[in-house]
Structures are given as C-alpha cells and as structure tokens.
C-alpha cells in the first residue's frame, strides 16, 4: 500500500490571545472543520506581546483546509481584524492523508 497524499493549505494566524473565542467562532462560520491553537509570545509592529498577564499574550492558530477556503478566511480576517489588532497571517502548502477530513 502506498500513501495517498493530497495537497492542502495551512493557514497560520498569530494574534492577540483576547481574540481566540471570536476568531474560532468566525472560522466555524466560514466553514472550517478543524483548527489547532498554541500559546505564544512575540514581537511585531505593535510592540512586545509577552506577559504573565493574559491580555498581553499571543496565540497561534493553525487551520488545514483547501486553498480556496484558506484564502477566503485570510481575506475575511484581513478586512475584519488586520487594522485594529496585532496580527500576522501566512499560507503554506502541505500534503495530507485522508482528504475527506479537510
């Protein structure tokens, strides 16, 4: 048996921890079927975000989905959040198994 690999896209969003609930809700509304969240700290154009204090922490959200959906989500997040929140987002190609999952 050989591996049946298919191409998908992973969208990674690094943003303020305070946005977790809101963004995960948006993701579901946009049709995403799964996501993974990690706690993070960092620095960017909006200063250092690294605190014991939850308000000043970051999260890193990872979503594997089709290219089209990834672009839709990214577009949507750009419009809704990019101007007012500390946020970075990027896309990468990945190979997955079980394509029906994503």
């Amino acid at each position, binding site marked *: 048996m050989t591996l049946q690999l298919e191409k998908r896209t992973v969208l990674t969003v690094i943003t303020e921890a*305070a946005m977790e609930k809101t963004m995960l809700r948006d993701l579901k509304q946009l049709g995403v079927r799964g996501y993974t969240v990690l706690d993070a700290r960092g620095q960017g154009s909006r200063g250092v975000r690294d605190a014991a*204090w*939850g308000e000043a922490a970051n999260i890193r959200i990872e979503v594997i989905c089709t290219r089209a959906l990834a672009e839709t989500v990214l577009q949507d997040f750009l419009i809704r959040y990019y101007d*007012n929140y500390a946020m970075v987002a990027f896309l990468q190609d990945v190979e997955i198994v079980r394509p029906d999952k994503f």
Partner: protein
Amino acid sequence: MNDVVILFFLLGLAAGLVRSELKLPSSLYETLSIFLLLTIGIKGGEGLATQALGPLLPQLGAVMLLGVALTLIAFAILRTVGRFPRTDAASIAAHYGSVSVATFAVGANWLLARGISYEPQVAVFLTVMEVPGIMVGILLARGLGKKTDWKGLAHETFLGKGVFLLMGGMAIGWAAGPEGLAPVKALFYDLFKGALALFLLEMGLIVSSQLSGFRQRGVFMIAFGLLMPVLSALLGLGCGVMLGLSVGGATLLATLAASASYIAVPAAMRLALPEANPTLSLAAVLGVSFPFNILAGIPLYHWLASQIVGAAP
C-alpha cells in the same frame, strides 16, 4: 501607608524598571487572581448572610448610577480638555467608570489592618460597578446603532471570569455562612494577605511594562490619571454618605469609584471598540491611577471619609 503588601508592589515595579529577569509564571498570576476574586466574594457573602437583603437593592441602583455618572464625566473631560477622538475618549472613560478588584483588595486590606470595619455589601458594589462603564462607554462611541453585539457583550461581562467568581464566591459565602466556611478558612482567609502580596508583586511588573505607553499624550494622560481618581473618589464619598455608610464603607466606595478597570474593560473594549487605542488607556490606568490609588489615594480617601462621615448629621 507602609503596609507590607505595598512593599511587594514596589519590588515588582523595581524589578521591571531595572529590567530584572524576574517573571512570575502566568498560571501563578491566574491562580492568584482566581483566589482573590473568590475570597472577596466569599467574605462579602459571609457578611451578607447575617443581615437583611432588603435595603441592598436601592443601594445597588445608586452605585450603578454612580458608575454611569463617572463614565460620562470622564468622557466629557477627555473630549473637551483632552480633545481625544470620540472612540478613544469613550474607551478611556469606560475604564474609569468601571472598577479594579486589585485596588479594592488593597483598600479592604488597608482598613482591616487598622481595625476599621466596613459594610459587607461593598463587595456587591464591586460586582455591579464593573458593568455600567462598559455599557455607557460603548453607547458613547457607537450610539444606539445595531452594530454592537450587545448579547455577546452581556455574556462576556456577566459570565466573564471576574464577575462570575465574585458572584459565585458571594453565593458560597452566603449559603455556607460563617460556620460552614470554617473548614476552608485556612486557605481562603489566612492566606489572603500573602496572596495579595504576591499578586501585587506581579502588578508591579505589569505596571512597569505599561509605562512606555506615555510616549503619546503623556502629560495629559498623567494629569488625567491622577485627577480623575480624586474627583471620582469625592463623588463616591458623596454617594457613600447618601447611602449612610460607615467611615470604612464610604472609604471603600470612594476607592472603588477612584479605581479604574484594567482587566474586564480593556478586554470588552478590544472586542466592541477595536479602533480605540488600548495602549493609552492601560498606561493611564496602570501606570498612574493604580499606583496612585494604592500608594496615596486610599489613605487620602479615608481621611476625607472620616471628615465627611463624622460631620454628616
């Protein structure tokens, strides 16, 4: 004024200012704040268990109106004197119309250390005063339009960690009563001051990290962060006298009025008024008003309260 818990705050502040490596684990900060919220609630509930709840309702109405008034006054000052854009003024005003649990805890501790008692319902005031600032602030920025997700916001506010733990603690304290609470007092009561000390150590670190926020509008924000609490405290004292509170109770209500939120309100504003600048408000609240209140404000408010309440007929 030289309460030992304040020394921990100063140590944390010093650590931040000299850029020491000191950092508390984030779960310790979370644990301490859960502990303080629960304990304040429990103590309040225990006190309420021994008295009639009837007179409480009008008092709650009065302190909520106080919160509304403080938000409106702060907004007016920020718009006219400070010439801030509408949204920023509304957001900062919301912080000052609301309250800070940490400031309350230091105030209650200050009174207890001096054997000054206060009415247990002040803990309930703390809970209800979290809310009006947020609501009025959003109304000031957005008007009554439909864009605001009021339902989500109400959920955030009433079921947020802070209000939920305060109210939950109150329910527990009220249901268990002094005797029922005895088994858990070794944790919640005996360790309260030590936990407050560690919490203030972290607050010192947090305050020091907010000072860079004064790069913009520094002079005005510092002046506002010093004078707004004093003005609020006077209104709080007036309200306390009107409600017939003791010197201790009036001091604490003044402290609540003078305090400004740095947890619930910033989070609510991030979601409801995202274009408001969060750095400005946190710098004023944490960099000026919080230290001022715990270092100089509380003794001042107590002195004022003892003058006014003593003099009231």
